[in-house]
């Protein structure tokens, strides 16, 4: 941990679980550690069910059944929020320290409320003495900075197109200038052009001083590559690769990360000459994950040792880490031969 940089969010060994109706325990976030510095964005990739959304929820320190906190620390600007009571988290953390845009947030907007009402709600929870007039002035200015027409404030969600709705959700989420913004698949259901507008807006939030750092979650790797500084790949509740966006996409170490990068589809010349690398099989059931490497069942390079004991996250230096018993040299060599 360098002293030079300003770490906004630090997570150590965070473990959370779902307790199902049948009292089964699903460890969807398993000893996750991460750091986000001021002015930086972190991307989280991985296939459906690997725990991305659960991690996003867990990071807020705001737990309600079936999700439960097990252990670990969440430190925002030096303050550990993991031990706080849910009510306190809601009052003093959400919106101001961390803002969260859940998957399909735009479809969850209350259809009977005008946008300005959402804005008022946000302020009332944190600054009940602000007058309506002040709130409206502030919102108008913020919307303008973010490139949204002021008229949007007086509209109902149904009157907005999908892209406009999503951008409105983002704008309202960052009104209190949170230190960390967590966006879970914010553009996945949109057409490419609207997606691009949403991305442009997200990227502008830091420049405009609305947020200090961002965690961006999506299974679309080309998108992560273009938006975030660093990428973490999750598999079965664990981090299996941590690297800069460029390294993660062009020089991944973990076999699962390598597989993901091989499934990227972009309309660029050359794509038709490569064969997409489909990863066979499905992820393990998190109620009862395998003892050894969780990827072993699907890994081309699996050996007997892989299945013996849990595989730790190896530090590869320079901020990189990966969870595989094979050395960097062996892995790179293997990928070279695979072509």
């Amino acid at each position, binding site marked *: 941990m360098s002293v030079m940089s300003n770490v906004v969010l630090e997570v150590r060994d965070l473990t959370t679980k779902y307790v199902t109706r049948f009292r089964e325990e699903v460890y969807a976030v398993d000893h996750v550690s991460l750091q986000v510095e001021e002015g930086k964005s972190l991307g989280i990739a991985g*296939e459906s069910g690997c725990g991305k959304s659960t991690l996003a929820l867990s990071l807020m320190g705001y737990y309600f059944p079936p999700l439960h906190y097990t252990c670990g620390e969440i430190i925002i600007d030096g303050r550990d929020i993991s031990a706080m009571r849910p009510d306190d988290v809601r009052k003093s953390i959400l919106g101001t320290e961390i803002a969260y845009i859940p998957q399909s947030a735009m479809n969850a907007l209350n259809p009977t409320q005008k946008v300005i009402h959402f804005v008022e709600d946000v302020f009332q929870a944190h600054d009940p003495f602000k007058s309506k007039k002040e709130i409206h002035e502030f919102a108008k200015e913020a919307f303008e900075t973010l490139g949204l027409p002021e008229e949007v404030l007086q509209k109902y969600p149904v009157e907005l197109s999908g892209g406009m709705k999503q951008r409105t959700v983002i704008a309202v989420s960052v009104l209190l200038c949170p230190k960390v913004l967590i966006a879970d698949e914010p553009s996945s259901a949109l*057409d490419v052009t609207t997606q691009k507008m949403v991305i442009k807006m997200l990227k502008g939030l830091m420049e405009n001083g609305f947020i200090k750092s961002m965690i961006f979650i999506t299974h679309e790797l*080309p998108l992560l590559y273009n938006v975030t500084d660093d990428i973490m790949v999750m598999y079965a509740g664990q981090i299996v690769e941590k690297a800069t966006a460029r390294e993660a996409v062009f020089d991944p170490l973990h076999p699962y990360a390598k597989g993901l990068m091989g499934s990227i*589809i972009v*309309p660029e010349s050359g794509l*038709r000459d490569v064969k*997409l690398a489909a990863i066979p099989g499905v992820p393990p059931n998190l109620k009862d994950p395998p003892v050894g490497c969780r990827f072993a069942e699907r890994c081309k390079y699996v050996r007997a040792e892989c299945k013996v004991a849990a595989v730790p996250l190896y530090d590869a230096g320079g901020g990189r880490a990966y969870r595989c018993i094979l050395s960097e040299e062996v892995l790179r060599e293997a990928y070279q031969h695979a072509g």
Partner: protein
Amino acid sequence: MPAEKDPCLSGRGVTKVFGFGRTRTVAVDHVDFDFHEGEVISIVGESGSGKTTLAKVLLGLINPTEGEVYFQGKERDIGSYRKKKEYWKQIQAIFQDPYCSYNIFRKIDTVLLDCIHMRGGRGLPRAKKVELMAEACSFVNLKFDELTNKYPFELSGGQMQRLMIARIFLLKPKILLADEPTSMIDACSRATILDMLMQLRDEIGMTVVFITHDIGLAYYVSDVVYIMENGRFVESGSADNVILHPKETYTQRLINDVPKIYEEWDLSTV
């Protein structure tokens, strides 16, 4: 495009209008096309451009308001229910939202059993039917034993999508319409589904029509691409021509707006 072979499915001036007066929507607007046997064709367009509506017309689920559909060189005749059933032996579809395309009250084994019956296998011994169903499931990496007695809504999106492909494996149609077959699943499993579809095509020699908003996917899988905007085909041709050398500004925009990894993705255009 003039072609050596006769097209297996064509359309001339195919149009579908919904509603009247102020609610009138021209979902498909005078489209012409020729799909040739064995080709993989993609129809690419944004949300609401009319892709699904066209797919429904092609499948005979809704009638075009105007225009003609030609099937195997002849004007398509699906006037009676019997003719429609014959038609559906040759042309089948995988739909955008797999949960909508099943009868939720029917168990999965009956979904597959229906396919065997449709292909004239009603009289087969029970053991043979189970064998066929198990084979179809293993083709798509599903375990038949784990599926029996389940209802469609008990499967995940990805499992459902694979079950749809297992259906096609049993039905062996001449033409397959796949409407956003990978939109329900993540980018990582997308390659698996595409692999399965392409393998199936090689095995039974189907013509595949992909309907998608994903221009990268269209480029990867198809021989021919049609670009759809507001119900019209604005550009068509070989995948290389359309995607690498687009002529229409609409096509250019679609391509520009997809995030890239080799070239720079220019955000200043929106």
